[in-house]
């Protein structure tokens, strides 16, 4: 265990039970690095997760308080919790692509609408991998999986001019970024901005799954192969090539530009109560 793991993570869950070669650890590390660089302590953060690979592998790793919601609902739980916790407590959610962009999208959009102060890290392994490898809403066209043996042929949410981050931007999210797990310090910088934003921040990070995506699409579980496959199809925003699937960097930064959900609600409640007191109706 390195210094950061010792400081922030529970020894019981390190090493994780992830498959060999799984890229989730890189994303997890980037989040911890960002937390460290912001000078945050264990008690400053409540950590929530969803289900699936990303949720299960990160659940219970944070030394502080933590929870895992049911499929797709963690955004609604987190909003309820946001209203109960003091504003200085950060809530970080590590979730998967199916959870955020499939089953939970309605709740995620409403979390964005309300600009709830949550930092959501969407760890995207390009489909449903903990159930054995079925395609999802970010699986690239033509990619083979157990439920797309002929190649994925549905519209997804990140191709042909569509972008789920655009949906979230229009819904009111105040910080949005996209990375691949090999982005290292660039991803850490985005996560730091996300945590610093008092509002809804989402950082979408594609990571390699050698076990399912590698074996079905690339014909090998060799980690290096899928690392390169992802890395080669990613490029920083502005440097995209014709075959770029993931333009990386900050997609939208309107940090602290809009009232935050819980503060605004508490402010309204306080105002109503004060008015009633003044009118001597309480």
């Amino acid at each position, binding site marked *: 265990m390195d210094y950061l793991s010792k400081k922030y993570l529970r020894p*019981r*869950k390190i090493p994780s039970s992830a498959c060999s070669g799984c890229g989730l650890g890189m994303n997890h590390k980037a989040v911890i690095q960002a937390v460290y660089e912001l000078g945050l302590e*264990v*008690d400053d953060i*409540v950590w929530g*997760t969803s*289900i699936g690979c990303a949720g*299960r592998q990160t*659940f*219970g790793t944070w*030394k*502080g*308080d*933590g*929870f*895992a*919601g*049911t*499929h797709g*609902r963690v955004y*609604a*739980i*987190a*909003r*309820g*919790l*946001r*209203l*109960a*916790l*003091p504003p200085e*407590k950060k809530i970080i959610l590590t979730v998967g692509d199916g959870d955020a962009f499939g089953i939970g999208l*309605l*709740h995620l*959009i*409403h979390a964005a609408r309300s600009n709830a102060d949550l930092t959501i890290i969407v760890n995207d392994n390009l489909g449903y991998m903990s159930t054995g490898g079925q395609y999802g809403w970010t699986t690239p066209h033509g990619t083979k999986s157990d439920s797309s043996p002929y190649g994925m042929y549905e519209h997804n949410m990140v191709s042909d001019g569509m972008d789920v981050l655009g949906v979230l931007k229009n819904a009111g999210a105040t910080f949005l970024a996209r990375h691949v797990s090999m982005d290292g310090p660039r991803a850490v910088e985005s996560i730091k901005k996300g945590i610093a934003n008092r509002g809804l921040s989402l950082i979408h990070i594609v990571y390699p799954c050698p076990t399912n995506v590698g074996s079905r699409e690339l014909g090998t579980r060799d980690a290096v192969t899928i690392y390169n496959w992802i890395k080669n199809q990613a490029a920083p925003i502005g440097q995209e090539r014709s075959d770029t699937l993931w333009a990386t960097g900050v997609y939208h930064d309107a940090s602290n530009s809009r009232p935050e959900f819980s503060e605004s*609600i*508490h402010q*309204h*409640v*306080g105002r*109503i*109560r004060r008015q*009633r007191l003044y009118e001597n*109706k*309480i």
Partner: protein
Amino acid sequence: MKRYLETGNFAVTEGAILAGCRFFAGYPITPATELAEAMSYRMPQVDGIYIQGEDECAALHLCIGAALGGYKAMTATSGPGYILYADPYGWAIGCEIPVVILNSGRVGPVSGITGAPGQGEFYLTRYPTQGGNFETIVLAPNSAQEAMAMTVEAFYLAERFRTPVTILADQLVTDGFEDISVPENEEEMKAMGFRTWPRGINRGPVFYPPTDEIDIPPVVLGHNTGALCSDWTPTEEGYDTEEVVAHHKHAYRLIFKIRNHKDLFNHLYEKTFMDDDPDLVVVSYGTPSRVVNTAVKKARQEGLKVGALRLIHLWPFPDEHFKKKTKYLSVELNWDGQLVREVRRAAHKDAEVHFVGSCGDLPAVAELLEVFEKLLKGQPLARKGWELEEW
């Protein structure tokens, strides 16, 4: 004490406030909308929060999140929304989150008639989520005044048992106006039998003891206790595990913490003319029980030895009331017969169990009297359309 002519929805709102509820997440649905409206008006006045979920599923999840942060929280809906609770309900049972849910029953299935009463969720409240291995607590008031009392009681039981509690009302209870008395201080609350339980904070490291113990404070996040809770089978410290032995411990706890402490709520029933071993016991809950009571009183005037048993806590089912070898008649606001199945299961092996259902409206006193007479004479129930279908 203040006295009003008000709706059950108003009564529930005041009951929730008395019980310490300061968070209500709603979603509009007839006939529970007025409760959400009343909460939206009252919550800010008592420093509480009202918000609307994007659907009922989110509304209950919002409540759970708020409860996880320390709020006493509540939501309300009708049948079509109650089914969307399946997801969060199971999570709240598993993570042992105290939260209160009101279901104002309307006639179904699906959307049915929005303004007509129904009792179609008797079993749904027992199994509001998948997976089994749990007990639920369900309270069924039959008047606005009692709806207030049962709301207070629901919060009390939710805290002590660390579990969601459903108040199963019907459209007539929540929408109907009635003269109600609202206590204004703690003494008046006590005099009315209202009991409350404060929210505690579990300090760990054991968050889910593998016992049937109650009165353990729930997990509250944000207090740096290292609390963990999730949808997976938990270890005692809250870690997710795939160990079957851990699951046995958890399932035991979820079932027997409630079964082994039924004494906390098994006084919640009402008996009318039941002291002389009546030849016919009429069983019901909710608003139909009020028509039953009128009918039973009339029957007694006519010399029929009929008694009425009204259930207030429905689940866990009070089997102990059905040990007499007699005739039972279940009167329900549905045609398929739900309560009657449970009565038949619980009843003495030589008891006779009958059913009269009405669909979308209350049964009439005259109809019930006719049924009582027939049953007491051992005659088959006359079939008048569907209403008097024998189960």
